[in-house]
């Protein structure tokens, strides 16, 4: 039987913050990463855990002040069923539908995906492409970290050890388009070989793209934006020539590795092709 470290299950956020401030606890939300780490004895095993599952303040999906706000404990199933998520973040809903299978989607949370900081976390490129803001909290109060600053290295985040992810805020931009694509071994239960989110704004119905974001997972030690490729796409229209140049640029900009799931060469070729196709589909040629 796997180890069973001590666990606290606070019923309110103040109590959770106090416990985290007093000693190090590993939070556990849906447990779909933590339980696998404990049972499989992967990485540093936790000395004690903080079960955040009953903190109702971390649930809920709201639309206000020009943003869609999703509580950290929101499950993939809840996102898939949420009308505001489907309306304002269809790419996120698409990503949620590719994660694990029903059992994982019923339990796995967006906060867990964010804090687990796997380079293959499937919602993370979408959050990067949508300029998401991650709201973290501790006894010291709340603070906002831009998604672009959140994942700092291999499985490292900007969170302090006593901080919790409370919610994620996605600005609503009516003129923004977001696309998502995941490449895995099979449709369900597959960790991404490459996962990409692409976004752009269309101003005044003009064909040129503005505020372009190209975000990727599984091609670096953390989820990344490829800023040189973005710069190349900025102000460009989605033509065949643009797509070819962007594909070449992205293949040169990423630094994927060989591992059990794929090879660096495969990831580079697929990333280039996925981006080329997304631009082609947007351009309608």
């Amino acid at each position, binding site marked *: *039987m*796997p*180890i*069973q*470290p*001590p*666990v606290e*299950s606070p019923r309110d956020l103040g109590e959770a913050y106090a416990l985290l401030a007093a000693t190090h606890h590993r939070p*556990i939300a*849906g*447990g*779909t990463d933590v*339980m*696998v780490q*404990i*049972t*499989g004895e992967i990485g540093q095993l936790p000395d004690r*855990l903080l*079960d955040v*599952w*009953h903190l109702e303040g971390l649930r809920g999906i709201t639309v206000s002040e020009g943003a869609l706000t999703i509580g950290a404990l929101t499950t993939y*199933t809840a996102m898939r069923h949420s009308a505001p998520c489907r309306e304002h973040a269809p790419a996120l809903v698409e990503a949620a539908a590719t994660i*694990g*299978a*029903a*059992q*994982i989607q*019923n*339990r796995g949370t967006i906060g867990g995906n964010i804090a687990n900081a796997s380079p293959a976390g499937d919602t993370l490129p979408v959050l990067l492409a949508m300029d998401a803001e991650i709201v973290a909290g501790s006894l010291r109060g709340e603070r906002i970290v831009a998604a672009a600053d959140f994942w700092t290295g291999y499985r490292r985040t900007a969170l302090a050890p006593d901080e919790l992810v409370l919610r994620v805020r996605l600005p609503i931009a009516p003129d923004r388009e977001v696309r998502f694509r995941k490449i895995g071994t099979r*449709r*369900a*239960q597959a960790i991404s070989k490459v996962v990409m989110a692409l976004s752009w704004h269309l101003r005044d119905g003009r064909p040129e793209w503005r505020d372009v974001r190209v975000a990727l997972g599984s091609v670096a030690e953390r989820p990344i934006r490829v800023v040189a490729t973005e710069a190349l796409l900025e102000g460009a229209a989605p033509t065949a020539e643009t797509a070819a140049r962007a594909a070449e640029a992205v293949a040169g900009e990423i630094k994927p590795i060989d591992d059990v799931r794929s090879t660096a060469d495969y990831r580079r070729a697929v990333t280039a092709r996925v981006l080329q196709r997304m631009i082609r589909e947007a351009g309608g040629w």
Partner: protein
Amino acid sequence: MLVNGDAVEVDVPGMRRLLDVLREDLGLSGTKEGCGEGECGACSVLLDGELVDACLVPICQVDGHVVRTVEGLAGRAVDGQPDLSQLDVVQSAFLETGGAQCGICTPGMLMAAHAFLASGADPTDEAIREAIAGNLCRCTGYTKIVDAIVLAAHSASQPPVE
């Protein structure tokens, strides 16, 4: 917590897996352990009506909640044991189509099938395959399992024949 309708209390470490509580502490060995890592679905149970992998749920999160396992699908005989003459529609359908061979995936498949039928979703091949995508079977090739779920969906929507 409520397990198959019975109020149950256990005194165990909070991080003990729901799977171990069911099998070891409550003697409900119908729920199987395959991988222990959320991949195979052999440990699938319903928690507050939602399909979960019992190997990924620490018991502290089940405190006060409602669990249903494969033992709770059939009606019960007077001795409290599952009554084989009162099988659930999914159980009868698996028997009918040959949806079980070695049986190790079957309890989890039945729970996934049950959750799918309860969702009221249209029983298309695509929807059924998505619903059981988290349940691995090494014997059947899945076709007879899908057939069983289609059959169960149809018999569930039909009034019982006198």
